[in-house]
């Protein structure tokens, strides 16, 4: 049954107890995202060090289990990775959510892949895809430090 795939334990856990849900003090990049259809919002804070590495990352926001879990897993995952790796991971994830059956990035270990694949249940729920991708698009703009607000309507998800 599809619902079980969508609301797996990992999603419920991250949705309920999201990791990195706070505003870090020493962020040097940030961006906000907004889904006008449902009102969901996310604010991503990044600390990128001199070696272009994600030293720290956190987020604030409210949203459904899917979007909170997605932001939570994402922030856990990219911590410690460098910018190019992160960008590659983002595009791998978005490709997977859009069409590809699997993740193929070398920059994600197996355990994290399993976690991310838990989000693939949304593929059967087209209206919910935006929930899963909002934080990822917002991360892209945080990295690019583009101060524009990300509006999921505009996005190619």
């Amino acid at each position, binding site marked *: 049954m599809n619902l079980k795939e969508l*609301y797996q334990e990992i999603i*419920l856990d991250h949705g309920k107890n999201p990791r990195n849900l706070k505003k870090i003090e020493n962020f040097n990049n940030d961006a906000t995202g907004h889904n006008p259809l*449902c*009102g*969901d919002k996310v604010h991503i804070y990044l600390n990128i060090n001199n070696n272009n590495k994600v030293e720290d990352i956190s987020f604030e926001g409210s*949203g*459904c*289990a*899917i979007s909170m879990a997605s932001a939570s897993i994402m922030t856990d995952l990219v911590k410690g990775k460098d910018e190019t790796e992160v960008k590659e991971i983002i595009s791998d994830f978005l490709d997977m959510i859009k069409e590809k059956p699997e993740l193929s990035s070398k920059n994600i270990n197996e355990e994290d892949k399993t976690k991310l694949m838990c989000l693939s249940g949304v593929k059967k729920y087209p209206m919910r895809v935006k929930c899963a991708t909002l934080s990822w698009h917002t991360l892209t703009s945080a990295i690019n430090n583009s101060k524009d607000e990300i509006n999921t309507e505009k996005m190619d998800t």
Partner: protein
Amino acid sequence: MNIDNIKKEFPIFNSKIHNNDLVYLDSANSSQKPLVVINRIYDFYTKEFSNVGRSVHYLAVAATNLYEKTRSSVQKYINAKDKNEIVFTKGATEAINLVANTFGQKYLKEGDEILITELEHHSNYVPWHFLRKEKGIKIKFAEVNNDGEITIESIEKKITNKTKLIAFTHLSNVTGAILPVKEITELAHSKKIPVLVDGCQSAPHLKLDMQDLDCDFYAISCHKMYGPTGLGILYAKKKWLEDLPPYQGGGGMIGQVKKDGISYGDLPNKYEAGTMATAQVIAFDESIKFLEKIGIHNIMQHEKQLMDYGEEILRKNNSVKLVGNPKKKGAVLSFTIDGIHPHDIATILDEDGVAIRAGHHCCQILHDKLGLTSTARASLGIYNTTDDIDKLNLSINKCKKIFNLK
């Protein structure tokens, strides 16, 4: 027609959703259509179609008469004084834009105030916001109380000698609060302020009597009233329609057209530029007949029973919180569940065929006030039954189970 088995007049309920019967609780968004209305569209297109008003051939004359017949039916149904006070629009949104634009053009200048409420749908705020940007008017918001109501006092408090119009909803699409339209209008008129009522949510559920309410403008969406999509109604007192400038320009709304000037047609043509939604207007006559056959008192009684039952059931359900607690309430049950986001609720309910809406319901101002980004909303139509409410409740319990709540 007996309201207790009215569902069978609506063919959609033969459809299966994920192998379940459809429990349609999204009527505040748009209502389902009875077969008589659908058939009328079919028959009109297959046997009688022509554009109205412009040609003198048989089909055109017949279509024009049918079109005008709906206008008369609407006039009667809402008890307007004159059939030319009924203007067909593409929706309630256009109806409100029409008033904001034309009233704004003629009567508003910098510093003037429009008074709306915190309950308003974006359709009754954004058009006024355009005037704020263009003309420098101010928008004041009457405040909603803890029960999700707008009282006459909350309106009165915000009226100043700069208030040029008061615009508010008859029935909130989130809290279900029914506003005291007649009293607010009396108050406004005592200060020579005209009143626009957003009747989107009230029109399918309450008795409509324009002469009794005495408001200046009343906006209706036909698709929420068991009618076709792409159609709305602006009721406006004749003096306003005569007084205000036209809104859209085009064929049919003119008198004489010269290179250096134009005179406009008489009512209601002046406000119906271009080819209108002919088939939809003609079919809407069947919606009115359908409602008249059931009888608005039966509708109100049926829906009141459902509302009472629904409120009772949901109140008893642990973790479920109703949004708003207005003394006079209609057709809308908005709620939240602690620990489950409305989007997740809607998705899980949908799996059982229970269709509700989750989101801000085009009322971000109200949601901000309530400190919520989103609510779940079950809204009722004449076809709903206590059985539907029971199914809603069962599916809510399923949500709770999935999310490990009690």
